[in-house]
């Protein structure tokens, strides 16, 4: 019990400690460039570790489901809330002959299982949201059929703070709780589930997934890349470094920017609202522990492909948090997903203000993504073999080292 309430001082690092622990040497780009490494990543990382695939509030009611294409594991998954309220995950594969049980368009499809069953359209096999095979048309026509063993193929699935994770390993080496470790303590306790207003953007980028991940993993680029959408961003400070096993985190502080007149109007409205105003008091105790007024957001890297940027209304006006995920489609192609989360607007003015903040942040993302395909082309050209990384890019250095450990089999 004591352990759960002890401060997380052991994960904090000063800059000299980061340099000492992670090194300062340039980092090889081989893991980005080499298609064979992608095959290893699929096998040793994406089929072994916990991956966030949904949120509980996307699937509020029993029967609500999400189909997600997972090329990184060569499958399609069905994530569904059962009658008992639990969210489970299955391969979206019919045990009759392999058709998709729930057909889908695009990378993500949402739906509702009526009467808590899903029916394969090919021959009409019916499965419960608990995975069990419920009925088979013309069952008597099968000389042999062990229905009890023909349920949907289940995938390990667990929730942390309403974020739904799966693990493709039939016997995961670690529970989700152990895998997240101190990250769950660092980020735990924030009322994520209250921010059900989500604006999700996605795009397919012609780059390796790590190029996209790394571009969103540092604050060094803010004054340059975001000179358009975040003009005059003052006093940016990327600090409070933390190392958490395979994960890492840090904080962006900043004295603000030269907000345009319309932004001031929309932001003022959100800042004046009880639901949307900055809530540094709601931040977990170990994030911005001194409650600095210039806190913008916490920027972690949750291995391998998830970022949850926790702002609690302190950064982008009214925004609780935003997430990024980077799903490799193949070695040189990545599905990027960015989601802005707000508490629900109580009136139309708050709605319009959220639209403005969302648009500004989307525009900043357009500035971020502008670099990725060019960076990948540059790395593939062979002109450079290494990345030069500064202190504020330590999340990249740490992720690259963690990746190497997993590929070498020293971590699993």
């Amino acid at each position, binding site marked *: 019990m004591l352990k759960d309430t002890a401060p997380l001082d052991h994960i904090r690092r000063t800059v000299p400690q980061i340099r000492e622990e992670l090194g300062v040497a340039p980092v090889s780009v081989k893991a980005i460039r080499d298609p064979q490494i992608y095959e290893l990543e699929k096998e040793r990382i994406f089929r072994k570790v916990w991956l966030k695939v949904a949120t509980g509030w996307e699937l509020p009611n029993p029967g609500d489901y999400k189909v997600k294409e997972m090329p990184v594991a060569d499958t399609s998954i069905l994530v569904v809330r059962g009658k008992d309220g639990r969210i489970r995950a299955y391969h979206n594969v019919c045990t009759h002959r392999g058709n998709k049980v729930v057909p889908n368009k695009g990378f*993500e499809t949402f739906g509702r299982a009526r009467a808590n069953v899903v029916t394969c359209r090919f021959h009409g096999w019916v499965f419960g949201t608990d995975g069990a095979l419920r009925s088979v048309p013309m069952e008597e026509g099968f000389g042999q059929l062990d229905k009890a063993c023909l349920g949907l193929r289940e995938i390990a699935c667990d929730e942390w703070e309403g974020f739904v994770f799966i693990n493709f390993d039939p016997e995961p080496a670690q529970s989700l709780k152990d895998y997240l470790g101190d990250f769950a303590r660092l980020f735990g306790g924030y009322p994520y589930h209250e921010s059900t207003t989500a*604006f*999700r*953007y*996605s*795009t*397919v980028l012609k780059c390796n997934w790590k190029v996209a991940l790394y571009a969103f993993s540092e604050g060094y680029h803010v004054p340059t*890349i975001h000179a*358009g*959408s975040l*003009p005059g961003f003052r006093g940016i400070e990327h600090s409070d470094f933390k190392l958490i096993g395979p994960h890492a985190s840090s904080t962006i502080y900043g004295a603000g920017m030269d907000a*345009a*007149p*319309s*932004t001031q*109007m*929309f932001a003022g*409205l959100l800042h004046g609202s009880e639901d949307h105003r900055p809530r540094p008091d709601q931040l977990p105790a170990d994030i911005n522990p001194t409650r600095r007024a210039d806190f913008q957001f916490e920027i972690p890297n949750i291995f391998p492909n998830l970022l949850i940027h926790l702002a609690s209304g302190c950064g982008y006006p009214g925004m609780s948090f935003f997430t990024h995920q980077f799903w490799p489609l193949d070695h040189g192609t990545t599905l990027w997903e960015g989601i802005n989360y707000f508490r*629900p*607007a*109580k*009136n*139309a*003015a*708050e*709605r*319009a*203000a959220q*639209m*403005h903040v969302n*648009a*500004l942040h*989307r*525009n900043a*993302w*357009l*500035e*971020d*993504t*502008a670099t*990725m395909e060019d960076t990948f082309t540059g790395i593939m050209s062979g002109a450079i073999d290494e990345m030069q990384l500064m202190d504020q890019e330590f999340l990249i250095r740490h992720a690259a080292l963690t990746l190497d450990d997993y590929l070498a089999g020293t971590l699993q």
Partner: protein
Amino acid sequence: MTILNDLILPAGFEDLAPVAARWARPTENERNALRFEAGAADFAAFRDAMAPRLEALLDYLKDCPPNPEEPAQRNALMLACAYAEAAPHHELYGGSAEVPFSFDARRFVPDHGNDPL
């Protein structure tokens, strides 16, 4: 560009009818499509019409539900959302319909792109 002449606005906001006809649309995809076609003069004119009225419009919208059904309220919100989207192009991006030095916005897919408001 289609002009929607049937947009009733709330009493006291009739002066915004021309900009509403020009800009107010229910979905992000439609608002973006208008924005991509617009030029610096369009954004400046939108700003000139809206800037002096934004505070009053938002005050009015504070008393409307977040997804109003009443047509005048709905149109007022569509107009505010259109301005929320367009204003940075005048205020930050020098009148450019694109975010300068950015990824192709048409390749960014909003899940909610066709959802009204």
